[in-house]
């Protein structure tokens, strides 16, 4: 943070749904106070004023899917002291990374009548694949509470304290009955990063890992456990290959599972 004056903050968007930066505007009770403590230099969705870098903090939503994105993310990195990625797209390539194992030219032909007008890279990739990321906030969408924790920590100059445990732990804390054990519902909660408040099991359904893999997730072990409980292999593969499926932990587990079955 600058020794004097308010920290200069910028919010950027690459390929994404807007939902993570919306979470900043969804901090309805804190937004005006937060905005008073920082200089929001660039946030196209919220303000017309645009101030050039350098920035103390850049918050980046979305994945890299075009040459233009790639240039932008390098430029953002050059201009920013601390780069914080927001959400599943920025951290894992997001749901649009489902194309990574497919033929993008075929995709383009499937949707757009004039494919020549479309410029897309073959893969949707996370920000960290291209530049150094200082801090990642997970989720699809990110949690407002975690965003607030990171912003306030950065404002006062301490390290953000985000949980490193799994969604499983959140269920136990809330007293939600385990959907996997009690109903045999396929659930990625044991290997998924906490933060959502275990919202899906609370609705009687399995976690589909929108917060991405937790640290040292043992996805192989969970896959074996799911298979042992009779979850069909194609369903396990579909679960792994979902909102954060391009994350190394899930991608490699899916590849191993596929190899084991052929």
């Amino acid at each position, binding site marked *: 943070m600058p020794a004097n004056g308010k920290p200069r903050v910028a919010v950027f*968007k*690459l*390929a*994404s*749904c*807007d*939902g*993570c*930066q*919306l979470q900043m*505007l*969804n901090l*309805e*009770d804190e937004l*005006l106070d937060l*905005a008073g403590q920082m200089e929001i230099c660039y946030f*196209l*969705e*919220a*303000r*017309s*004023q*645009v101030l050039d870098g350098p920035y103390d903090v850049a918050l980046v939503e979305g994945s890299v*899917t*075009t040459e*233009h*994105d790639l240039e932008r993310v390098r430029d953002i990195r050059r201009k920013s002291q601390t780069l914080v990625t927001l959400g599943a797209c920025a951290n894992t390539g*997001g*749901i*649009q990374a*489902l*194309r990574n194992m*497919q033929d*993008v030219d*075929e*995709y*383009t032909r*499937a*949707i*757009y*009548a*004039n494919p020549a*007008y*479309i410029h*897309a890279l073959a893969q949707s990739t996370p920000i960290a694949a291209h530049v150094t990321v200082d801090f990642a906030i997970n989720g*699809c*969408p990110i949690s407002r509470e975690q965003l607030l924790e990171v912003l306030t920590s950065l404002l006062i100059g301490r390290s953000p304290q985000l949980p490193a445990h799994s969604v499983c732990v959140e269920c136990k804390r809330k007293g939600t009955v385990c959907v996997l054990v009690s109903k045999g519902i396929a659930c990625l909660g044991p290997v998924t990063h906490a933060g*959502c408040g275990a*919202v*899906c099991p*609370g*609705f*009687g*359904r399995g976690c*589909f890992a*929108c917060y991405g893999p937790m640290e040292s997730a043992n996805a192989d072990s969970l896959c074996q456990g799911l298979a042992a409980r009779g979850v069909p292999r194609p*369903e396990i593969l*579909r679960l792994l290959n*979902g*909102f954060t499926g391009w994350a190394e932990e899930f991608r490699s587990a899916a590849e191993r599972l596929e190899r084991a079955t052929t």
Partner: protein
Amino acid sequence: MIATNETRTIRLESMTRVEGEGGLRIEIRDGRVQDVNFDIYEAPRFFEAFLRGRSLREVPDFTARICGICPAAHQMSAVQAIETALGIMPGQEIRALRRLLYCGEWIESHALHIYLLQAPDFFGMESALTLSKEQPELVKRGLELKKIGNEVMTIVGGRSVHPVSVCVGGFWKAPQRQELLKLRTRLEWALQASLDTVKFVSGLKLPAFAADYECVSLSHPREYAMNDGAIVSSAGLNIPVRDFDQVFLEEHVAHSTALHTVRAEHGSSYLVGPLARMNLNRSQLPPAARQAANECGIAWPCPNPYAGIVARAVELVMASEESLRLIDTYREPEPANVEYAIRAGEGCAATEAPRGLLYHRYRINDQGIVQSARIVPPTCQNCRRIEDDLRLMVHGILDRPDAEIVDACEKLVRNYDPCISCSTHAVRIQINHR
């Protein structure tokens, strides 16, 4: 004074206070507006392609990710389209709960647009953050309204951005009556704040502008249409949703990763969204909203896109009022979702997203796997209309400097509350004077 034999290009790289990223390009030659492009350069995300091969059960969670502002809208159109393909029809209780979730999204999205995105334009300010220094109570009212919309979505959907409770057949779990009753005092406040919002926007000086719109929306025999109905227009169109593809055509243009939808018959543009709905369906507003519409000083039907903010405010009243009614008459659906047998089929549905008509169509095989998907969001349908309106407006202000033209264009575009993230599942502003 601009010489008549030169070409002038006016360009706006990135629009602000809209959802997602797009620009404008306007080309003026020999003193005439030659070309207007509302450029959507945001990267395409290929939803229709990667949905193929996925299970029909995953579709509501996947399509929510098209848009963080209107995820429930995509979920509503998606599940209803798939239910049509499967030949199932959830009961009235589920229908009512879906309408409540949708009301929450309308409140959240409309409050965001009125107070945070558009209001600063009427005060000559660059953002609501700046506006809040002069009018803190006004901005706080907007934020509180938005928060209440989010609370409705959270109780019904589990969370406001990308709700998790919606499934094919109904809900994973339905809220209990007492959980919904917690929202009652909040929604009573929201109803009053929405009425105050109508007064506030009615007092704004709206620029004069009139266009010959064909307004298009759903229309339902008994209520202000949200989840179902026939597709009607101010030009006399009245078709079942299944005929959408015969009547509306998507065109792919070079300057946009959003497909542009036009009327197939004559290639003309049309208008969807709050103004179109108010022009077509206002007689079905519930009492408080109807009274607010009658007393707001706008003569309906209204051809002025700047009255969109008033239409949106009246719909805030409607959504708050409807939420209260739906909570008071709530009966927990039992079961929360209807069982279904997988069968091959094709189905479509259209619902009214906050920004207008949202059409989804799916073909499913006998294993429940998606074979094809088609998604037509409201912004794709409004793109051509936005360009038509920009052309009309720029023609009247050619003598002004570029910066003023750009500013006027941006303000005009905000009336439509374009959602670029939705449209690029595919539009930029640049003005060319050559």
